[in-house]
Structures are given as C-alpha cells and as structure tokens.
C-alpha cells in the first residue's frame, strides 16, 4: 500500500532534479505544445524502432514460413503456426544451446565482476606504486579489437604457458578471457575514484584492513556500477560469436552457445522455424533486461563513473 505513493513521489522528485525546462516554462503554451508534441513523436518513434522489430520477430516466430516470405507485414493470413516454436526448441536444439549460453553468461559474469572489482579496487583505492603504468596498459588494450587477437589467444588457450593443458572445449576458455575486459575495469575504477575517500579513511580508522574495506565498504557502496557492469558482461556473452566458435569447437552441441549455433543452422532451416529460434534466443536477454533495468536506466551507476 505504501509503496506506490512513495514511488510516485520519488519520480516527481527525480524529474525536478534535472532538465533545462523549468516548471514554470511548462505552463507557457509554446513549450507545452512544442515539447509535448516532440515527446509524443519520440515515443511513437521509439516504439516503432525499439519495439517494432522485436514484435515483428515474435509475430513471425508463429507465422508460417510462406506467409512471412510473401507478406511479411500481414497478420497471420494463414493462421498461427505454433509448430515453429516446438520445431525450433526440439529439432534445432535451441533449448540446449540456450542453456549453454546461460551457463557461459553466468560464468563470464562472475569472472568479469571478480576481475573488475578487485582490479579497480586495487588501482583506485589501494593505489599500488605502478598503478599508472598498469592503467596505461589497460587502456592500450581498448585499441586492440578482439578479432585481431583470436589467433594468438587461441594458440595460448590450447597450450597455456606453465599449465600446458588445453582449455579448448572447456568453459574456462571463455570465462577467463572474457573477463580481461579493460572497459569494465576502467568503468569500475572511475566509479570507485568518485566515491568519497574519507569514508575509506574512516573505515580504516575504525579498524578495516584492505579486505574488510573491500567487502564491507566498497562493494556495498558500488551497487549501481555493479549493475551496469553486470548488464554489459552478460550482454557481451550473448554477443560473443567467434571466440566460442573457435574454443568450444563448431561441432560441440553439448557446449556451444546460441550465437554460434544460429548462423550455422540458418542455411538449412525453414524461415519460420529459424525466426522462432531467433525469437527464443532473444527472449532470455530481453526478459533479463526488463527485470533488471530499473537501476540501470536511472543512470546512477554510469553517472557515478562519468562525473569528475
């Protein structure tokens, strides 16, 4: 009962916090109509562009192949083909590949968060002697596209130094390299940089060592940016194509992800089934995003990393 008014108040306050149009401006007709119209147009545009393709995909996932090809914008001229979905799930093994992808995503997420938080914490809060050098080395990697490193990285993963045991066909071959993402580390570090130093100092005086400081103070204060990096890391593992193809093998149905699977089945699959497979594959990240979007879209995490 109390949640609703509270949320509404929250939002009104938020709206007050920003914007170049003052409350009073809103009462002038030119602003009210001009901006109001612009907002309605924007909403229509965003619905068409942002939601339209997805709705079309879901519609086509249950449309017969023939209908989709002949009249792509019509609504079910020959009825609904639920069989597309079952075909995709069973015959095209989308379910299995989705499960694999989720495993990949969870592992990548954990390792990305682990590396980004510990590394950024060391660089931003503990400030080791060669921090600047390490930071520069991290930034350099942003210029090196992933595709470019495929070969040397692959050679290394199949015959890692010291270990000499191939990681090919093993999810660690994705989880670990995926966490070497300088962007996440930099984002996290910028956020930590903007946390008030005095709180860390207060904690140290209160008796925190570096580990306590990390777990009891820094991590609880970083929830917004953890959300941002989580979304980035999870989306990245749904995105990744070439690397899983290479290290998990293009033939390994027990491991491979949907991103690898879909282009492979595209040539052999009737369009209706294929679009159903696409829809099922897109569903997981979309639903995940809708569940977790609140804090992310409010921008507290990102603006914490952007300011200063």
């Amino acid at each position, binding site marked *: 009962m109390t949640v609703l008014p509270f949320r509404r108040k929250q939002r009104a306050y938020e709206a007050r916090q920003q914007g170049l149009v003052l409350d009073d401006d809103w009462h002038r007709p030119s602003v009210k109509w001009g901006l109001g119209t612009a907002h309605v147009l924007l909403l229509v545009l965003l619905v068409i562009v942002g939601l339209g393709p997805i709705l079309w995909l879901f519609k086509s996932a249950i449309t017969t192949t023939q209908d989709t090809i002949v009249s792509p914008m019509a609504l079910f001229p020959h009825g609904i083909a639920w069989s597309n979905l079952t075909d995709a799930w069973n015959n095209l093994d989308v379910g299995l590949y989705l499960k694999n992808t989720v495993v990949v995503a969870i592992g990548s997420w954990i390792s990305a968060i682990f590396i980004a938080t510990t590394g950024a914490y060391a660089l931003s809060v503990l400030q080791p002697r060669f921090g600047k050098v390490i930071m520069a080395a991290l930034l350099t990697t942003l210029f090196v596209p992933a595709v470019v490193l*495929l*070969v040397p990285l*692959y*050679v290394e993963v*199949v*015959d890692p130094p010291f270990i000499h045991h*191939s990681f*090919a*066909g093993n999810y660690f071959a994705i989880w670990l390299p995926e966490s070497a993402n300088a962007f996440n580390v930099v984002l996290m570090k910028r956020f930590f940089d903007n946390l008030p130093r005095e709180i860390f100092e207060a904690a140290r005086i209160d008796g925190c060592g570096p580990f306590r400081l990390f777990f009891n103070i820094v991590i609880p204060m970083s929830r917004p940016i953890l959300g941002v990096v989580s979304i980035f890391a999870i989306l990245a593992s749904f995105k990744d194509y070439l690397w899983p*193809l*290479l290290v998990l*093998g*293009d*033939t*390994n*149905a027990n491991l491979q992800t949907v991103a690898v699977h879909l282009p492979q089945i*595209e*040539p*052999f*699959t*009737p369009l209706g089934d294929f679009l159903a497979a696409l829809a099922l594959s897109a569903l997981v990240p979309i639903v995940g995003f809708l569940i977790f979007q609140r804090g992310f879209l409010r921008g507290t995490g990102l603006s914490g990393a952007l300011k200063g």
Partner: protein
Amino acid sequence: SASASSSVSISVASLVPGATAAATAQFNNQVKQFEKANPGINVKSVQYDWTAPTFAAELAAKTLPTVFTVPFTDGDSLGDAGQLANLTKYVKTYSWSKDFDKAAIAEGTDAKGQIVAIPEAAYAQGLEYNRNLFANAGLNPNDPPKTWAQVETDAKAIVLHDAQVAGFSVMGANDNTAGWILTTMADAFGGRMEKGIGAKAVATFDNPGAVAALTFDHNLRWNDNAMGTNFNLSWGTSNQAFAAGEIGMFISGSDVYTNMVQGFNIPAGIYGLAALPQQSSGSGASSPGELGGGTLAAVTPFASKAQIAAAVKWINFFYISPLVTKAGAIRNAKSLDDDNQPVGVPTFPIFSQKIYNQDLKWEEPYINVPETAFAPFNKSILKDNLVPEPEAATQAIYGDLDSVVEQVLTNQNANIPALLQAANSAGQASIAQASASS
C-alpha cells in the same frame, strides 16, 4: 605384426554432429570390430565436420583427431606446407594403392611426390533440376537440357509459368561458392581458371570459357530475368531453396541429394540430376569438362610413427575397404539403408572404373534412391571429361572469383573481361602467397 606389448592410441573423425543414435551406434560397432582385428590399437572417436574458418586453427592447436578428412582442394597444399603426415610408406603396403585413379591420387600427393592424404570419396558437378517445375512448365522431366541454350529456354519457360521461382540459379555468396560454381561453368564451357601446378601455376581467369559462362549468367539475369531475386545463395541455402521448390535448375555436386534428404526433407519425386552441358566456346578454348571434387582422409603431422601406421590401418578399414572389398561394401551400404539414409547417390570413381562398377554391384541390393532421378546423370557422366579443381591456392582463387560473379549478378553494366582481368591479378597473388607457404 606389431609387438603386442606396445599399444597405440589414435583418435578418429567420426560422424558429423547431430548424427542419429543408430548411426553413432553403428560407427562405434565398426570401431569395436577394428579394435578386435587390431589388438594394440585403441581408437577414440571424435565428432568432426570440416569447415574452412576453423580447420587451420584447430590443426595448429592439435585439437583435430589423428585421422580427419579434408577436401580435394586442400590436400596437396596442406602437404606442401608440412601440415600433414607423410603416409607414402604405409599406403604402399596395400594392394589398392596401385589402383588409384590418377587424378584422384594426385589430389593427395604433395610437390615431392609423397602421399599425404588418401582419397576416399569423389563427386562430379551436375545440374540439379526440379522435376515438378519442369512438368508444370510443360517440359519433359526425363529430358533435362543438354546444351546451355536449352538451359536458357527451359529456365525462361519455368519463369513464364511461375514468376515466383528462379528458372536457373547460381550461388553468389562471398564464401568461395560463387567462384566455385563459376569455375564449374567455365570448365563446362571449355575454359580453365589455372594452368600448371604449385609455384609455377598461372591464373588464367580471362579465358573464353569464363567469359562465356559469365555472359550466360548475365544474360539470364538481366535479359531473361530468369534468376529469381536472391543472388546471395550459398551451398546450404541453395539446397534449402531447391528443396522448397523455389529453384528450377542449379549447379552443385552430384552428392547434394543426401543433404537435401537429411536437412530439408525434400519432397519425394521433385529431385532430378543431369550432367552439365558440355560446350566448347570456340577458339583458344580447352576441351569442355565436368569439374569434380572429393574428400581425402589425412593424418595429423603431430602423430608418432606408430600412430601413423595405426591411422592408415583405420583409413583402410573404414574408408577404403567399402570401396574395394565385398564385405566392406555390404557392411557400409546396409548400415546406411538401415538408417534410412540414401544409398546409390552417384559418386565418382576413386579407383579404376572396374573396381567402381564391382562396388556398385555389391551395393545393389541396398540401393534406395529413385533411379529415374539420377538416370540422366549416370547416362552421360562416364562419357564426359572429368576436370580436377584448380591445383594451386584453390580456395583463394574461388574467393578471388566470388566478387566477379557478384558484380555480374548485381550490376547490369558489369564489364566482364575487365572484371576477370582484375580478379586475375588477385588470383596470381593468391597463388604466389600459397606457394610461399610451402
């Protein structure tokens, strides 16, 4: 007689991923038989599917099995680059090693004359046609075109009857398939894309056959409007479109029927296969021919001597014996038939014609493909002149030719000779690069 004390382990390429449980069981059964016959050899089976983008990397990373297969086009280049084990010594111990078709074994022989890969299957390019569309357009499905001119008239007839389909289609994707089909057609028009072998090979894209083939495509595309709307088809999408009844005629290997059955449940009765029309394009042209290809079994260069020996034994047992021994032939055909997979799809002889015919006879009881579908092909193919794929830098050359085909299909004003000339210098560079690697 290997000393019983020293046992050796090898891994072998098994079926492609997604094979049925029955097929897998059947394969494992064969492994067991082999191990029983060869005590001291342990065989581990690994799913395997050759794809260009990952093959070299997996080879280098030692993630390939000990025994694997590569296409004809790659055998000698890989051998020249030291990426395959030398099998000469081991192959020579088998009697069938003397019976190879010369062209076939050449694909597995490197520049030094060593056998680095063993041919195990071959096919010729053919003209796939849709018997239903032929019948609907008032054409005789049992009398497919024998000349390129007939191909054009039939294509027009098909389109005239049903504007939604392509009368004739060629692969146009930038994944080397466009270049491959162009080379096939050029050969049939009496052209050759390459002369000589190895470092001495010369790209000859600008040949009359290629010009004739491209002119033919251009004509159907822009004048007759008989090639449909999709010019970006590749091997798989062509098969899909054909099985879906969207293509009247197209060119692909004689063995694609298997894929259409396995992948697309092609409706019974629509499939027809003919040999490609053979037609010289006049002065300066070579004799027209059917482009062929195939698969080689090879062994990783990282294998020990004992592993190589065991690997060749496996190759003999699994790949070669069905072709040259009665027991092997029956074992293979029966298991395919049991699994409802096509038996009797035309391939091309790897050994002598005599051995091929003998093999067919052994298989006869299990043949399950419609005879009428393959009759036109079988009737003429043996008369035709079989041409191997360009020897040097094969895939690279196809890649260089891809863009020529795409230009012709997407640009009405494409200047065919100029395009070929430009591609030719790229092709020559590809040859130089490939030879530098050996």
